[in-house]
């Protein structure tokens, strides 16, 4: 079992990550509900993981998804503005 302090820190990080992803996922192209359901399934699937290295890797993947979403939203908006306002 993980030492108490590590598992508390992990679970704080995990819930922060989950709320960050839930918030970001609202604008997902396939729909906020689609994203939320898949996110919840992913977190449920990995709930039993105890190995700290594995947890670290999963959190890193979550952070990666968050950055990808931000990039997606930015590019979508940038391309729309470029198309509407700039002749190339």
């Amino acid at each position, binding site marked *: 079992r993980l030492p108490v302090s590590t598992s508390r820190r992990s679970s704080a990080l995990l819930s922060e990550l989950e709320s960050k992803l839930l*918030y970001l996922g609202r604008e997902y192209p396939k729909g906020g509900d689609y994203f939320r359901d898949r996110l919840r399934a992913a977190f449920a699937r990995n709930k039993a993981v105890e190995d700290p290295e594995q947890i670290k890797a999963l959190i890193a993947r979550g952070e990666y998804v968050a950055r990808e979403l931000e990039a997606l939203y930015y590019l979508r908006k940038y391309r*729309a503005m470029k198309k509407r*306002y700039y002749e190339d």
Partner: protein
Amino acid sequence: MSGRVLVGVKRVIDYAVKIRVKPDNTGVVTDGVKHSMNPFCEIAVEEAVKLKEKKLIKEVVAVSCGPQQSQETIRTALAMGADRGIHVDVSGKDYENLGPLQVSKILAALAKQEDAQLILLGKQAIDDDCNQTGQMTAALLDWPQGTFASEVSLEGDKINLVREIDGGLEHIKINTPAVITADLRLNTPRYATLPNIMKAKKKKIVTVKPADLGVDVTSRLEVLKVEEPPQRQAGRV
């Protein structure tokens, strides 16, 4: 030098929403429609916050003119890093008729009241596409203006600016205080993350009325009709 920057942010219908004209042709449907910060205003906020992060300016004040919901737009600016907000309360018919001339009078009054060194705005709003507020504000204050800015750098008490104009780029140097309007390529605005939105709830938003600033928001324009553009005919090859 106050080191204070005023950033104007406008609440507009979200860029991704399909606009519908009201059946009575008096305007577009806004009730229940998703609104967000004008994309060019996001770029202006980002530039102001970057200047603060580089310690070139001391305080970023976000300003929005409109009804209660404009405070949401100010909150987004605060979440992106602005320090405090000023909500200029304009609602009802006054808000429907609010345009660049009145907004620039409001911004000019605020710039004097807040002793601002710099006013940063988006080059235009995606709803009315006026592209006038920055220019009018500069004229009212008798300040230099750097419009369509794609690069901004501070050099002492001057600003080096690159402007995107037809046919290329123009490099200018202007004195401060000044008005700058942001173009698309100026920067990449940061996303207002959830923790920052939470932190921003502690930042102050003050509400004022145009009359408090000595500004009359009566419009000199009357909208006669709003209609959809003609349907595109299918092309022929």
